């Protein structure tokens, strides 16, 4: 008989994280917005439906970061498990440590904060997480002395939510790659020792390849990490401060097999730049990338996606080795797959600004060529049925109206290429509480003009993508219908909103 009280360490998150988003990772982005034009429950179902669990409440798929922590603790001999948020009450008796992780606990990260600023409404990820932490089970756990550890890429956000920190009785917040510290921390928590309040794991304590465990159970939508770190050194990015590590093929293979065993037939290769796997500095090496894809395709019969790739790598790999077309035709666009999704970063269309804040993002091409690099790689992706979701940052430090105009020009040039472009704001913390300041002092009419171009681009291609590629499975028809309705609604809202925003921004 299964002993459901046997986990001393319960690892979890709220529903917006603990979901496979209908098997479509991109739909997870809906959880970063408020429920626009729909009841929250319906919005949550669209963005983050409940996930299948076993008798103990362990989800069949769980966020990769939580799986890594689970694996590390199991390897160290702890009785630890990822548990679905609706089922943690089953473990209340045995639980001594509750660990919560999130990509965006309080919606301070992109794109949640953009949604929040523009609509004035709190995104559902924030609402859902706070509701979970205020749930009766979490309160009971705290009352019986369970230690609460929060962590993940959004750990820093707790520093701006100290009332909530206190309300939830958070014992310690861990920021950064946790593999090297988490076992010790949990041991101390179980031994009842005094815990620190905050741990920031710096580059000296980033785990080596050997310290990174293999996940024990399936990750959401088959996401697996192929490397950590990024050598490009953009000034606004913390990933780049950490050493570059390539996960060996045999470890990647083991994780794919873990996923397949749980019935996950797809894989998302996670990296800041998949094409730099086994690379030579900032130059892709075709042999390493091909070997990786060969191995993945050997096992994965469904679709393969890349989490991120850099535009410079795409151009360099295709121009020098025809690598993108080769990967697409031989490994990616096979029977089970008719497109490949990837997130890419444009950030700016201004070579002047690129030179200042991200001088190596275009490497091996000079920063002065950045708009050309972006356009060429968008063309290459379009020709190979790779659909990018591109980010662009508005209000980067040092940005002037020339930079915004250059970015707008680039957006126009990208029009022929199938893609989603998502604007993000580079805003100081505290702005979320002062939306008037944001509209009056921060957004200029050039910004508005740029945003309108971006939204028009994205709406145009979103319809095309849905008609030809996305959510084609018959069981997803209702979802497709709702999303199409949503696109129409956004168009309608936008036509009314633009004059209002224009009237309240400064020139």
């Amino acid at each position, binding site marked *: 008989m299964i002993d459901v009280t046997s986990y001393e360490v319960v690892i979890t998150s709220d529903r917006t994280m603990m979901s496979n988003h209908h098997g479509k990772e991109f739909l997870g982005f809906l959880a970063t917005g408020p429920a626009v034009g729909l009841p929250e429950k319906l919005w949550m179902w669209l963005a983050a439906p409940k996930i299948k669990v076993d008798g103990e409440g362990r989800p069949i798929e769980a966020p990769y970061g939580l799986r890594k922590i689970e694996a590390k603790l199991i390897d160290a001999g702890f009785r630890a498990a990822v548990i679905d948020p609706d089922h943690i009450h089953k473990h209340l008796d045995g639980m001594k440590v509750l660990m919560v992780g999130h990509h965006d606990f309080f919606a301070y990260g992109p794109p949640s904060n953009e949604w929040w600023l523009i609509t004035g409404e709190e995104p559902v990820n924030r609402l859902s997480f706070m509701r979970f932490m205020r749930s009766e089970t979490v309160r009971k756990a705290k009352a019986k002395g369970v230690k609460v550890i929060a962590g993940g890429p959004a750990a*820093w956000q707790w*520093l*701006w939510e*100290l009332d909530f*920190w*206190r309300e939830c009785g*958070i014992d310690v917040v861990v920021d*950064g790659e946790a593999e*090297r*510290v988490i076992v*010790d*921390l949990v*041991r*101390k928590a179980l*031994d009842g*020792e*005094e815990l*620190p*309040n*905050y*741990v*920031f*794991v*710096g*580059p*000296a*304590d980033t785990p080596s390849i050997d310290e990174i465990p293999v996940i024990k159970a399936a990750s959401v939508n088959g996401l697996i990490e192929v490397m950590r770190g990024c050598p490009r050194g953009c000034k606004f990015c*913390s990933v780049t*401060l950490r050493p570059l590590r390539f996960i060996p093929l045999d470890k990647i293979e083991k994780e794919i097999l873990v996923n397949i065993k749980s019935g996950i037939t797809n894989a998302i290769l996670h990296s800041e730049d998949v094409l730099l796997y086994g690379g030579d500095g900032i130059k892709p090496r075709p042999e390493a990338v091909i070997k990786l894809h060969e191995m993945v395709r050997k096992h994965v019969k469904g679709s393969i996606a890349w989490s991120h790739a850099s535009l410079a790598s795409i151009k360099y790999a295709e121009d020098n080795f025809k690598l993108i077309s080769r990967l697409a035709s031989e490994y990616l666009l096979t029977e089970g797959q008719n497109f490949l999704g990837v997130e890419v970063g444009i950030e700016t269309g201004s070579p002047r600004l690129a030179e200042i804040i991200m001088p190596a993002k275009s490497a091996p091409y000079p920063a002065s060529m950045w708009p050309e690099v972006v356009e060429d790689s968008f063309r290459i992706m379009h020709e190979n049925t790779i659909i990018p979701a591109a980010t662009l940052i508005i209000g980067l430090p040092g940005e002037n109206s020339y930079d915004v105009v250059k970015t707008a020009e680039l957006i126009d040039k990208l029009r022929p290429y199938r893609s989603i472009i998502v604007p993000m704001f580079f805003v100081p913390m505290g702005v979320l509480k002062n939306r008037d300041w944001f509209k009056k002092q921060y957004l200029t009419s050039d910004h508005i003009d740029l945003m309108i171009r971006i939204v028009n681009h994205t709406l145009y291609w979103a319809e095309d993508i849905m008609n030809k590629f996305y959510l084609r499975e018959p069981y997803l028809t209702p979802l497709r219908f709702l999303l199409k309705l949503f696109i129409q609604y956004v168009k309608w809202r936008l036509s009314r909103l633009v004059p209002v925003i224009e009237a309240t921004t400064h020139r």
Partner: protein
Amino acid sequence: MSLIVKCLKHLNIIYVRNVQNLVIEMLDIELKSHHMVIVLDSDLDGLEMVLRNMAELSIKNGFRRFVIHVISTYGNPYYLEKLRYLLQSITSYTVVVRYEGSSSSDLLKLINKLPSDSSIFIRRDSPLIDALKERGLNIYLW
């Protein structure tokens, strides 16, 4: 904690002079850290000073890890509001933050436990400065 684990931890004591109870209470990464005390009873004007001290210690002694012990009347966790810009400015080191109480006796108890080369950041008008100086600590005033 098993005896073996305890013994292993005591081997680390070369990093922390003075006290063994500190060793037991701390994470392994803290044992190999430089210890700092910040007495926080107003906004942290000494932010630059703390960052400079970290950089100097990192260059001179190779420290890549710092433990920040905080004595503050703001209470736990509200003292973190005064520290958050410092914490967000640090990207190159591992930093562990501990709340150690609010009173002068908490401070004196704390410094008795810490290695004698610890850095202490305190307002220049604090009445505790003389007591701290007597103990030969590295005091930074703001």
